[in-house]
């Protein structure tokens, strides 16, 4: 009798202990143990919220790499007052992000958020961060409606989908010479937002539209629709996995038109998903310029991988926070004011923010897939 009660008590304690540790966060990076009383934000952390695994995990890893490079450079210069990084993997899903956002705002060591990575999760968590007063700079969330919510703590260092969608439509009809464009998207916030802007900008050139699901692998119905509509170009709003599978099946069916997608697909993983020959000739736009010449070697030294899309944006975002710390700001309100009035030039280009949190200058670049590889060094700017 006593034994079984003891066993039960131990089991309950073990279960509670396990669930408490399971609620913990992954902590990467160095954190200084001592708390300085001089007001400096030593031993504090930046947070990253975004997709590190899942359908679009490659993009999140690019961002984490950029943040780590910025922190590495900062910590070398401030070896007695280091800043760490806490990563929260949302898998890019707006369902998983809110719970992680709650963890972020309850963690008093976090002074700022680089993220959220994607538009869906930004819309799902923006209110939480705004109400907690935590400033955030997203390197990659491009949906237009995010900065229309009145969240004064939310910023992004990348051009939004309004600019990107209009530029994409212009590219397809003028440079691409397409007469009829078929628009497909995967119904997510970012994808639908971008596809809608493109469709509106295309006007009469839009030959039709369809919506697929994330995780869908058989696109035969969409392929039939594209062929039947007589479209000579397809614009896909979404991420690289479905984009690659779609263009592969379009080419397998013998369709010869131009395939274009946005920044969610602008990654070498697109070529892997599509296969080299199907991916050749695809045009992937992004509101991001190629990284400066020495960036990749510095990035590789810290991360043992090549820089990718959003690495420079995340690097710049992290540096803005670190610049605020250098300027002696340590409270969230001061850091937020610093961001609002920040002007400078980062690895991704000139940065300053308007009243709503959007970056003021933006150029959209078209990246081509040639000879089985995504050419990340020589994009064409779309006028």
């Amino acid at each position: 009798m006593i034994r079984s009660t003891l066993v039960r008590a131990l089991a309950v304690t073990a279960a509670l202990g396990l669930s408490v540790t399971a609620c913990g966060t992954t902590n990467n990076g160095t954190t200084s143990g001592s708390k300085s009383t001089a007001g400096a934000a030593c031993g504090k952390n930046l947070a990253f919220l975004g997709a590190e695994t899942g359908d679009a995990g490659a993009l999140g890893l690019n961002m984490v790499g950029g943040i780590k490079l910025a922190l590495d450079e900062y910590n070398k210069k401030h070896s007695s007052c280091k800043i760490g990084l806490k990563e929260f993997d949302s898998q890019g899903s707006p369902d998983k992000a809110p719970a992680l956002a709650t963890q972020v705002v309850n963690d008093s060591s976090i002074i700022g958020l680089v993220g959220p990575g994607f538009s869906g999760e930004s819309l799902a968590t923006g209110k939480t961060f705004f109400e907690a007063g935590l400033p955030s700079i997203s390197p990659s969330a491009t949906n237009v409606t995010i900065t229309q919510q009145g969240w004064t703590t939310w910023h992004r260092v990348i051009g939004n989908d309004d600019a990107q969608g209009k530029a994409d439509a212009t590219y397809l009809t003028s440079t691409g010479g397409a007469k009829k464009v078929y628009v497909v998207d995967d119904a997510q916030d970012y994808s639908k937002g971008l596809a809608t802007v493109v469709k509106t900008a295309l006007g009469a050139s839009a030959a039709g539209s369809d919506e697929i699901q994330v995780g869908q692998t058989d696109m035969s119905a969409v392929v039939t629709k594209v062929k039947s509509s007589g479209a000579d170009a397809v614009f896909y709003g979404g991420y690289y996995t479905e984009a690659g599978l779609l263009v592969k099946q379009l080419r397998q069916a013998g369709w010869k038109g131009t395939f274009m997608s946005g920044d969610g697909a602008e990654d070498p993983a697109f070529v892997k998903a599509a296969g080299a020959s199907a991916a050749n000739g695809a045009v992937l736009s992004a509101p991001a310029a190629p990284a400066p010449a020495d960036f990749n070697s510095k990035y590789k030294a810290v991360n043992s991988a090549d820089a990718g899309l959003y690495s420079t944006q995340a690097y710049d975002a992290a540096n803005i926070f670190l610049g605020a710390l250098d300027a002696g700001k340590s409270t969230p309100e001061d850091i937020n004011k610093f961001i609002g009035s920040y002007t400078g030039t980062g690895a991704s280009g000139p940065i300053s923010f308007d009243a709503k949190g959007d970056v003021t200058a933006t150029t959209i670049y078209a990246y081509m897939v040639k000879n089985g590889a995504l050419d990340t060094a020589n994009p064409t700017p779309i006028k």
Partner: protein
Amino acid sequence: MDFGFLFHNIIELTITGLALGAIYALVALGYTMVYGVLQLINFAHSEVFMYGTFAVAWVVVFFHGTTSATQSLGSSLGILGAALVAAMVLSAAIALLLERVAYRPLIKKGAPKLIALISAIGASFSLAEIMGLRDKIAGWVGLQDDLSAYVSKARDLYSSPIDVQPQNLFPVGNYQVTDVDLLVIGAALAMMVALDQFVRRTRFGRGIRAVAQDPESAALMGVNSTRVVQLTFLIGGLMAGVAATLYMIRIGSTRQNAGFILGVKAFTAAVLGGIGNLRGALIGGLLLGVVENYGSAVFGSQWKDVVAFVLLVLILLVRPSGLLGEALGKARA
């Protein structure tokens, strides 16, 4: 609602739907056989299929390397043949492992079917996550660098480097039927006929039908029920291996959760055709593939799953035992 589009392209939508449905049918066979013999829904069968797809990709990487290449079906037959064998072996092995670890202990203890179902769900998640963590597992034995072409970036999409480019063979209406279409549909039909003959005419098949009909009487008649259950899982695994090879020829990429959606669809197909009925699995699979395509054509691709499941509900309302109804145990000799 675009019926005009549907009618104009009905041949193309039907043939591509049949090709998709053939893969559902082959996976549905595994579900239907295990249910027929054990009255157990083997939720982990989707992972048996997923491991088969990885076996195909790994064999292609092993023989061909990681450089991307586009080849016709004819010139890839050798490597695809090897991949088929590997997929069938690995899927069968996973199926037998499942039977031994997740089900046999429970069946021997006479556990309620619900417990076996929970064990199936747990096995499904475990197998999928083991594939998703293969880079860490390779790291434990220090092989993550040697095997990096096979285990790195374990949670990303894993593509077979050889792209099979379908060749047009002959036109039917305004659609050019390709060699891949014929291969997929033909292979599924051939496997189905072979399996049907196996169950009807061989001694092993009679054993399967006997255990499906009445396990105790079968034991009294000298049928080793453990062997029969193993054989059932083995056959399900072999069919899933064939389905995996055909899937990789058509789609070319896989990931650790690729089995999940396909497993749900295949199980739906099995129920649609009459769970426990082999021909039902074929009819259910082909019908589901075609209906999904028609639904996408008429309503838009986002409604594809809604159409498929509404069809399932409607058919079950009219015929609760599914289209063909008759169970494995009642198949006539």
